[in-house]
């Protein structure tokens, strides 16, 4: 005993006292599903690529993005961004401008020439893709990355499908489309243009393909019976928009009437204005609220001088271009009913934009294949009733947007890959949704959305220059940093800071944290103060 007066024990550390034994509830880290990811038809991990973009590492952000979607520059222009509609930040101030950051990343990749990671080792399997639209390109990209040999056969003269022959240049400049298509072909995807596949089984047998993905799209304009004089000029929207890609632009005249209420109707009317029409009038049988077209597109069209006649149907078209239009009224159920009141409209041409049908002739005689309501029936694995034959995009039941088509391509590719390996693709279970009430918004400061600059209206209605401009680096970074990182740890150190018991172990940059259950008393402060809802309290097994 060589201790000071009245001291009998060595000095000890409180670490001997394992206060973790007090716990009845334990905090656990988890990833929740951010609403943007949950809403993305292409299954992008948006929160993850924004995380990289926030740090200014745009190439990593782009690589995380293209793991799911090979067409970010196109998406950043034509996607209707359901992610932004779902964004939790909308409940705080305004949704994060995800679409504009996506476009910034896509454009940066094209400018800097970033290439995809090389494909996996060859599997020896061959897959035929019919149609080089968004769905076919997406499937080809994913299949090629998985190591399969892929050949696309496209009936049109150029790749892109509706992205080239349906979406006007002022929304999607062709060099952007060409750049993103080329990058997919550079992976070693074979593309044959200008040949229509007429018999899918014969085509597969001839090319010794192990599986096929059909994505021929919907290119036949729907007609409506409108009695018309023999000299009346009546066209369909698909032909007009397709004609814009050729040498001879469609002759629409000075006064153009477009019949329909979808985005295609707006595209045609806006195209007509750019071709020099002094009047471009959309006739739609219901009201603006009922219009299937997106509101911002209606707004842009109105700014450009497009006129819209609501609650009207076209009864007939006389030789000299006089349209008889009947006024409609909405009944209790919201359906338009005729009123018996008529008026006349003068038009040099009438363009029908009433939707599109699919040319399914290549499927004639395929056993087991079912066609319902003019589209091919596929299972949850995107496979038709004929083994090895998959289909996606506009030719299967869907919302018919570019993003949905890209999502079909990815999903089909995963199932085709599994099918070729004689297994089944089982997607991992989805995380629980990171709803707004899981966030602690105290920690997010206010910052309003960065609005993308718009081209002057005068230039918009006379040229095909792109209407919506991109963000530059400083405001793209600002926009990315507005992300709340819902449900996914962004290493803000809050848990590490607020624990009264030092029971959170910080593992270092990119490594997140661990909980030291020897000392965690289970108070739950870390859960309460986590800004993004990435910690959960669960009962201890007692």
């Amino acid at each position: 005993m060589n201790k000071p007066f009245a001291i009998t024990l060595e000095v000890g550390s409180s670490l001997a006292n394992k206060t973790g034994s007090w716990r009845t509830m334990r905090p656990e880290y988890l990833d929740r599903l951010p609403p943007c990811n949950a809403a993305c038809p292409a299954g992008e991990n948006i929160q993850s690529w924004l995380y990289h973009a926030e740090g200014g590492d745009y190439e990593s952000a782009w690589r995380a993005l293209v793991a799911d979607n090979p067409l970010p520059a196109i998406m950043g222009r034509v996607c209707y961004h359901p992610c932004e509609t779902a964004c939790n930040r909308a409940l705080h101030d305004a949704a994060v401008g995800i679409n504009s950051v996506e476009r910034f990343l896509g454009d940066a990749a094209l400018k800097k020439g970033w290439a995809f990671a090389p494909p996996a080792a060859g599997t020896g399997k061959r897959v035929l893709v019919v149609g080089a639209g968004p769905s076919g390109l997406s499937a080809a990209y994913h299949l090629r990355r998985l190591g399969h040999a892929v050949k696309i056969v496209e009936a049109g003269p150029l790749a892109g499908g509706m992205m080239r022959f349906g979406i006007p240049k002022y929304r999607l400049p062709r060099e952007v489309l060409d750049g993103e298509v080329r990058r997919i072909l550079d992976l070693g995807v074979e593309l044959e243009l200008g040949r229509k596949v007429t018999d899918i089984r014969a085509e597969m047998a001839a090319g010794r393909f192990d599986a096929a993905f059909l994505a021929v799209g919907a290119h036949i304009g729907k007609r409506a019976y409108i009695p018309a004089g023999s000299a009346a000029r009546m066209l369909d929207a698909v032909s007009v928009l397709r004609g814009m890609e050729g040498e001879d632009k469609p002759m629409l005249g000075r006064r153009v009437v477009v019949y329909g209420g979808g985005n295609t109707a707006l595209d045609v009317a806006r195209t007509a204005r750019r071709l020099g029409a002094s009047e471009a009038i959309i006739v739609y049988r219901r009201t603006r609220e009922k219009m299937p077209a997106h509101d911002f597109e209606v707004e842009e069209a109105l700014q450009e001088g497009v006129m819209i006649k609501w609650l009207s149907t076209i009864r007939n078209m006389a030789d000299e271009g006089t349209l008889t239009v009947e006024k409609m009224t909405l009944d209790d159920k919201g359906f338009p009913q005729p009123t018996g009141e008529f008026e006349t409209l003068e038009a040099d041409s009438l363009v029908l934009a009433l939707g599109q049908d699919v040319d399914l002739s290549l499927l004639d005689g395929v056993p087991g294949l079912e066609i319902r309501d003019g589209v091919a029936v596929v299972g949850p694995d995107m496979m038709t009733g004929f083994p090895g034959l998959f289909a996606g995009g506009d030719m299967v039941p869907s919302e018919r947007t570019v993003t949905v088509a890209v999502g079909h391509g990815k999903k089909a590719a995963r199932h085709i890959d599994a099918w070729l390996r004689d297994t089944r693709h089982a997607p991992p279970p989805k995380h629980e949704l990171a709803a707004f009430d899981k966030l602690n918004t105290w920690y997010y400061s206010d910052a309003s959305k960065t609005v993308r600059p718009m081209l002057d209206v005068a230039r918009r209605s006379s040229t095909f220059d792109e209407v919506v401009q991109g963000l530059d680096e400083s405001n793209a970074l600002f926009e990315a940093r507005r992300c709340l990182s819902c449900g996914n740890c962004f290493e803000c150190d809050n848990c590490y800071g607020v624990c009264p018991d030092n029971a959170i172990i910080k593992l270092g940059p990119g490594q997140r944290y661990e909980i030291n259950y020897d000392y965690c008393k289970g108070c739950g402060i870390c859960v309460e103060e986590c800004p993004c809802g990435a910690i959960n309290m669960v009962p201890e097994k007692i």
Partner: protein
Amino acid sequence: MIQQTIKFYQTGTFTVGNRLLDESQRSVQANMERTNSLNSGHRACQGCGEALGARYAIDAAMRATGNRLIAVNATGCLEVFSTPYPESSWQIPWIHSLFGNAAAVASGIAAALRMRGQDDVRVIAQGGDGGTTDIGFGCLSGMFERNDDVLYLCYDNEAYMNTGVQRSSATPPTARTATTMAVGDEPGNPFGTGKNVPLIAMAHHIPYVATATVANLRDLEAKVTKAMALRGARYIHIHVPCPLGWGSDPALTIRIARLAVESGLFPLFEAAHGELTSRTFIRRRVPAAEYLRLQKRFAHLFTAGAEAQLARVQAIADRNIERFGLLAPESAS
């Protein structure tokens, strides 16, 4: 936020750390190498605000002094839960003497260091509200008036929690404690009692006085860092919720501390030589009831007939907001 000039949007300016910030601008608590002055294994209750406040403050002081620091502790929860003989949670030179003499012991240590010419070693005294505003008040006032080179930290949880939640002179009006039961015409601690020690400290005209809270780490660290850059007597009064004594959910410790600030009941300010020099503005103003409702010690304020009492508490919050100018100019209405 006075102490962080770069504005971040994703992470806000309000989280403990920020991976996008330059290392030198991050908080002490975000640092993997922080001292952890008060280590794991201490016996504080779940969600203890005082344990958190003490680590925040002492870690910041350790960084500010290059780890040349001695801490004196008054009797109280902090002392009892951190050092049951022979264990200690303290990872710094630390001494405890009596309940009422922490300021005097610290003055003595400062004098001894001066005699030995060790002006690089700094002294902190710390205690709860009981040891500061009641029992140790004479020693504290003496330390102030002599302008001894000590930073005194008071962790205010508004009653004697260690001995069973008895009223102190820092207990707010209407709060139920073991000695101010929620009975009679004016249930809980009576109005018109108690004292405001930060204002009394200012009346000593010492170099630095500040209030801080566990709900605003960066503000707290900036104040401790500033205090350690000064010489002479300094005082920081830190608001630390006590789940046991206040009857609140341990998980809500920080939220409750935040609501105390946002309601105006606990104003955050700084003063130098007796003059108010800055205040931390309220970010999202809330009624006092939002703060009170989460604590069982105020449960009687939410029963029928207690409206007048509740209104009097709200009046205190309103007066603080006006007196200390707690609303940012653009949001003042």
